[in-house]
């Protein structure tokens, strides 16, 4: 195994630098087809991809879930409540700690480099903690931590993958019998040519002008987290949030169905 700077001796290391082969220019007519109310996948503009979600797949975890939505495949497990082991963690005597760890597998996406050392995974872990935190009754677990581990097996659209991870994690929390106010449903919308399209995949996301990611608790009708990127007018944002809320409610039904089993 070679020892170039930046290599990790705990891994089997490849070459110092590698790149995917250059792709020929693909037909960029997604923008035109959106105006004609057509999407590359054949879906309606306001239709999220159908959701398959199943709980209790990892035998050693307190709770676990597996999710498929279009091309997205995500697995998640939850441990806890258990004593806080982490050195330097803030131990609060009154509330528990929710820790999320989000990981991409190397082969999971077309847009990520191999063994990328960046803060993206940490950033998404933060988003997960912020989106799920308000839903978990943390005051029920003083001095303990609830650990959520998410692994992306395949992704299709960055925002859609984060949304899927939030849904998967909240079902895993429910499967682990963690007290929650409600399960968190989540959906993303992208704006292309002034139109909002719901649950955009990678091809559509490459063309987007703006996007909104919204995490929502449908039973208590509360929003736990939202991110907007890109420039829109206030009306457009409100419109986008409403579309997200509708899609979240739809997706929530199939989450509830699998939670019931």
């Amino acid at each position, binding site marked *: *195994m*070679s020892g170039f700077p930046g290599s*990790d001796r*705990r*891994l*089997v*290391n*490849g*070459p110092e*630098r*590698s*790149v*995917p*082969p*250059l*792709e*020929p220019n693909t037909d960029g007519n997604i923008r035109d087809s959106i105006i004609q109310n057509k999407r590359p996948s054949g879906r309606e503009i306001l239709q999220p991809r159908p959701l398959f979600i199943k709980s209790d*797949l*990892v*035998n*050693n*975890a307190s709770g676990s879930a*597996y999710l498929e939505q279009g*091309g997205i*495949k995500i*697995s*998640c*497990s939850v*441990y806890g409540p258990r004593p806080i082991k982490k050195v330097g963690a803030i131990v609060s005597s009154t509330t528990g700690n929710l820790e999320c*760890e989000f*990981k991409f*597998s*190397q*082969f*999971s*996406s*077309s847009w990520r480099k*191999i063994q990328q050392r960046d803060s993206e995974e940490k950033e998404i872990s933060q988003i997960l903690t912020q989106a799920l935190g308000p839903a978990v009754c943390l005051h029920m677990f003083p001095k303990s931590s609830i*650990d959520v*581990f*998410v*692994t992306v*097996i*395949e*992704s*299709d659209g960055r925002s859609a993958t984060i949304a899927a991870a939030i849904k998967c994690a909240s079902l895993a929390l429910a499967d682990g019998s963690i007290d929650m106010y409600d399960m968190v449903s989540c959906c993303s919308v992208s704006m292309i040519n002034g139109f909002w399209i719901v649950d955009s995949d990678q091809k559509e996301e490459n063309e987007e002008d703006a996007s909104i990611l919204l995490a929502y608790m449908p039973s208590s009708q509360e929003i736990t987290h939202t991110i907007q990127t890109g420039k829109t007018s206030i009306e457009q944002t409100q419109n986008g949030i409403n579309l997200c809320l509708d899609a979240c409610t739809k997706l929530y039904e199939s989450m509830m169905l699998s939670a019931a089993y």
Partner: protein
Amino acid sequence: MSTDLFKAKIFQKIHPQEFHRRFFSKKLRTDGREFNDFRTTKVTQDGIQVADGSSTVRLGKTTIVCGIRAEVCEPKLQTPGKGYLVPNVKLTPMCSNKFAPGPPGLLSQVVSDHIYRLFDESVFPLDQLLIEKGTAVWCLYADIVCLNYDGNIFDASIIALMLALKNGKYNTFKLDIIYYKLVVLPKVCFDETSGSVNRVKGEGSKVTLTTELFPSTFCLVEGSYLLTDPSMDEEDLADTFFFIVMDSSDNIVNMWKRGAGHITPDQTDIIYETAKKRKLQLEKL
């Protein structure tokens, strides 16, 4: 849950060794298998669209996903005509509470390194990954991700990597007796003026393995019970492990005994016999 079953579960939690010993003394195992039975093995190929090759292997409850991504890189100066195969096993806390978050732990380092040495030039010739001599070669990044850990990660990872390389979609026919069709690398051309590698339309080049590999793992509990394909509970009790890999023509490719206990010649005979039977099972997958 009936009270008897509940009592049995508590007994298993408090005295795992005694719980298993009572089964072993009746030549049975806790999941109903006999000593030399393997768990049901299920495989799916080509499940991940973004990867260049992929497979899913389920060995009982142990679930492994292997995905391969092909990238272009410069070859080493010493070997200008050879590419790279980079297998890494990822055992995250997602798959079991045995593993800690952070950098790869001991077990994943050991398994990754062993697989790297097992898939050497005699099994996977690296000169087939050549694009342009001295300038560009393929690098196959094979990530083996565990989704549910229930023992015997060695067998599952090796089968997964084999099948991911031997991608189902393209495996419609065998080229000849010893060569098998594998991952199809995208067709590329090397542009001499710009020095770049471009993907072009057309059928890509196939990757081949000189032999298939058929792994089996055994463990020895209390020096006398030889268990085939141990589950996680059984691995915890065992002090000796025996790992053997057969190739397509019934030869032993790799053998590894680890642990402080000893194995008698009679037991090795059983191991060889079982490994041959396992080869026949795996060939049908």
